[in-house]
């Protein structure tokens, strides 16, 4: 679990680094690229978790993001809903790299749409949906495709490392349980 947490935190750290290179324009006069590697890292991690745990963790993560960004529970609503939908779709797909990139792209779009819809309903923004897609989503989705690819590779290495650690732990447990077998 701690490796998963470190993976997600690394995603958010990369977000803040990417924001230095691609500053966000709050005036939306130019196309915006909004880094979401933290959310995508969490999405990849949650694919291996149960629905209940994934949604609870998603709500917790969204609440933390809202607390830091002052966005009035919008992310706390968007994260669990999008994670639930992606997990339902993931059951119908294999675990190939292409399908993980596809899931990540769809998940990102879904999360952004729910976030935009929530903020519009609350009255925080009056951005029209076509301007939202053109000025914010287009470059964000396109820019994230290669990033999701790299993140999926890293997730596979992380999962492999976790499996190795898990096997070592289980081997040690068997040795400790059976005192007649010498370590």
């Amino acid at each position, binding site marked *: 679990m701690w490796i998963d947490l470190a993976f997600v935190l690394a995603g958010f*750290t990369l977000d*803040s*680094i990417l*924001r*230095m*290179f691609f*500053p*966000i*324009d*709050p*005036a*939306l*006069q*130019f196309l*915006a690229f*909004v880094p979401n590697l933290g959310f995508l890292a969490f999405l990849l991690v949650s694919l291996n978790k149960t629905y*209940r*745990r994934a949604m*609870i*963790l998603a*709500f*917790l993560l969204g*609440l933390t993001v809202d*607390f*830091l*960004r*002052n*966005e009035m529970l919008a992310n706390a609503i968007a994260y669990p809903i999008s994670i639930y939908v992606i997990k339902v779709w993931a059951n119908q797909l294999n675990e190939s790299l292409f399908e993980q990139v596809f899931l990540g792209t769809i998940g990102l779009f879904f999360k952004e749409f729910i*976030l935009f819809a929530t*903020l519009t309903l609350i009255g*925080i*923004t*009056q*951005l*029209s949906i076509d*301007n939202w897609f053109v*000025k*914010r989503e287009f470059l964000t989705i396109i820019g994230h495709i290669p990033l999701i690819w790299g993140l999926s590779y890293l997730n596979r290495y992380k999962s492999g490392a976790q499996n190795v650690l898990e096997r070592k732990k289980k081997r040690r447990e068997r040795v400790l349980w059976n005192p007649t077998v010498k370590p």
Partner: protein
Amino acid sequence: MNRFNPLNRFLLKLIAGLLAISVFLAAVRFNSSLQSSTDQAFGFFTSIRVTLFDHPIQAIGDFISDFTSLYALKAENDRLRLQIDMLEQFQARLEEAYRDIEDLKTINDLKESMTEYHLIAAMVLNRPADTFNHKIRLNVGTLDDVALNDAVISSEGLIGKVVTVTSSTCDVLLLTTEQELNKVSVKIQISKTDTIEALLESYDVNEGAYVLSLLETSSTVVQGMTVISSGLGETYPSGLLVGYVLKVDTAQSAGGIKVYVSPAADFTHLNYVAIVKRGNLNVD
């Protein structure tokens, strides 16, 4: 059988605890001493993040930007040399204008004029993390004589005003916010000597421009006219550049004629800004 395993129960308790803490913090938000403590704690972590990540990355980005713009430097140098030659003339005219202002103040028994202000330089610590976020955090606070509702400008124009301030940091609400609470009294320069008053009501994110409502309709506003702060309302001094007229909506509505103004400031690259304090003449 319990539907939640121990980890899920722990997470649910954690969520409940965080929500309770949020409600508690919101309830004690009016306690200024406690709020300043939490802001100082948050500012400590912000300082660490700025030192470890933002500054080095900014330095690398600036180096790459400077290196790639080397070829354009010569043309820029020639242009700037011409401007420098003109600067001495402008400096002499400016000093003469300052002397005229002082004489007029003495004649009219005024303590200060609406154009007087001095600047407090500041660095941006936190930039917007999202396009729906319209606040930035600066590294100056009450210890640097920053107060609530002080105007904030960049090198290109007005960007917002201070909405919260602690001893060492302050939050600035940008003019790009869609909240209609951020009104600014401005004037549109019709000619070198004539202006008309208007009120900057909000920012239209779909048009990418400020929305002004004219307080008088006797003059004609055309595209390209300069819009500056008027100094009325006691929040912003007079003369701060706001933007340039983009288009005029001549359809009459309950709010009068609407003028769309493109911002002069570049909100994407906000690294160093200045807080405007109304007061003594800036003669430096």
